[in-house]
């Protein structure tokens, strides 16, 4: 195991470093040995596969015959461009991303504000709100697939009490299914983001609030004019993380249908890009096509993150 051999290597290099007589300066070649495990593992299993995906995407590779790959140039990308299900998956990913992220982050901000009050049972509330985050995405999706069940699901039962007709969440219209899937994402991540906002709120200097109070602003005005501007970098951070997460959404659409297929609903109502990629590679055995999808997703993520950053910078300049 590399885990065992690395410290031994450290020992050797640090002795060499110790022989140098610069007693005051804590610097040595040993430092490279300390950081090398991270960069070695990251390079081998993180960066290299990501870059090599681009190379694979220019080949035709079959899952059943991995050692045989044929150079086909940009053909995989051309095929992607003409595939209606790719565009469908892109649309679904973007729309699910918006309806799962925007309400979630707004609610998280409000919750963080409430959690920041002086109160009894603060730890209880924080831990309770983090329970969905600790639940795996697989378990959460299976549970919500039951709750959203058409015939015996609790949510339809409850809506029926309110006079709403039974809804086919798992295989109904695009809109219904995507709302249900976004509910899973929102349930899992709202508490986590609330804690991140709470942490940032607690580092806002109290003088700002005192000054606002002297100026006669009420709680809501303080929230709007002090808290939210101070939280801007944190909000941007959570938006970027949520965007990256939403672009890779896989388990929810894969397991929500409960039919074991990779279609994302009978009419692909909620097939996301990640699910489409999985389908290309592991259902249709076209690994090259899947790699082309992955690189396209990477490109889209980079563009979206840049747009996020530019928007945030523009807004803070105006503000």
């Amino acid at each position, binding site marked *: 195991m590399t885990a065992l051999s690395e410290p031994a290597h450290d020992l050797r290099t640090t002795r060499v470093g110790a022989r140098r007589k610069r007693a005051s300066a804590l610097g*040595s070649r040993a430092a490279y040995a300390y950081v090398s495990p991270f960069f070695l593992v990251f390079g081998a299993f*993180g960066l290299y596969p990501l870059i090599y995906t681009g190379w694979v995407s220019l080949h035709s590779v079959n899952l059943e015959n991995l050692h045989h790959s044929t150079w086909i140039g940009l053909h995989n990308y051309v095929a992607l461009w003409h595939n209606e299900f790719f565009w469908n998956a892109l649309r679904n990913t973007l729309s699910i991303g918006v309806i799962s992220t925007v309400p979630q982050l707004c609610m998280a901000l409000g919750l963080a504000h409430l959690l920041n009050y002086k109160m009894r049972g603060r730890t209880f509330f924080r831990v309770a709100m983090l329970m969905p985050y600790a639940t795996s995405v697989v378990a959460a999706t299976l549970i919500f697939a039951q709750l959203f069940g058409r015939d015996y699901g609790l949510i339809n039962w409850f809506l029926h009490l309110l006079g709403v007709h039974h809804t086919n969440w798992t295989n109904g219209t695009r809109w219904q299914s995507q709302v249900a899937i976004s509910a899973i994402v929102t349930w899992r991540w709202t508490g986590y983001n609330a804690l991140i906002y709470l942490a940032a709120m607690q580092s806002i200097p109290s003088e700002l609030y005192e000054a606002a109070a002297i100026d006669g602003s009420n709680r809501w005005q303080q929230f709007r004019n002090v808290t939210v501007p101070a939280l801007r970098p944190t909000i941007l951070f959570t938006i970027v993380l949520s965007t990256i997460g939403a672009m890779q959404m896989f388990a929810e659409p894969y397991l929500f249908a409960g039919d074991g297929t990779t279609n994302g609903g009978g009419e692909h109502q909620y097939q996301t890009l990640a699910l489409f990629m999985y389908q290309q590679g592991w259902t249709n055995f076209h690994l090259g096509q899947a790699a082309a999808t992955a690189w396209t997703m990477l490109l889209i993520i980079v563009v979206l993150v840049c747009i996020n950053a530019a928007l945030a910078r523009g807004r803070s300049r105006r503000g």
Partner: protein
Amino acid sequence: MATQTLNPGNSNTEAGAPGRLRIRGTRAGRQFTAGPYTYLILAITTVVAVFPLYYTMIIASHTNHEMAQVPPPFLPNSSMFHNIRLALHEQPLLKAIVNSLIVSGCTAIGTVLFCTLSGFAFAKLRFRGSRALLALTIATMAIPPQLGVIPLFLLIAKLHWVNHLQSVVLPTLVSAFGVFFMRQYLTNAIPTEILEAGWVDGASTFRIFRSIVVPIARPAMAVLGMLTFLASWNDFFWPLLALTSRNPTVQVGLAGLGSGYIPQQAVIMGGTLLGTFPVLVVFALLGRQIVGGIMQGAVKG
């Protein structure tokens, strides 16, 4: 990177409990006391957060027939062990739990070890290129590893590692978040004078690491270990590709249960209960520390 802008000018805040106490002290002056509506909204949120987990237990303890009643049952019943037995019959969930313990344990230990080493180097050692390397580390946090799975799959296929646990452990042995988390903690927690004293006494860097850094870093290592264990236990996409239902992790096993030919909700929920609740119970017990860790990592990372 966005993460760098996140440090809102309070880098002198001490890490750990003293720092939190200090913040709380200065904050007390302006902090509003929660009114009844605050408690009400938080109580409703708590119910929404916890109810689906409670209802998992309800479904898992009934037969399918009982669940079809109107109104649906809201209290547990007696069929839980029967349902769990059926789930075990369909998927090797006990093997999956053992596998997940191995994978998550190895990943947590490896991540804590490597991240503490790197975090210490970035926090306290001076070496050429350290700034650039740290920036590179932070930048890697934005890289979605899920998009590199195809070459990774080709790699483990070439090594004949498909369906072996090391294919799941090795790629996740390090975490950029962990390096950053440990660096932030150690920068503040270790007085440089202690290290210099050790250096003057002729201790090697590794000796200093073992006898000074590790004892001080222990609380942060524990939090990082817990967060890593949880993330690894809940990981799904890569294990689904690298393993099969003959040698699954918990999540792969549960997914197999959920996409069977005849979906039996009571059985699926029985398996979900078995594979999820042990972790949730541990999480609830250690909740205070985990919440503290996430909030610390948030302000600084």
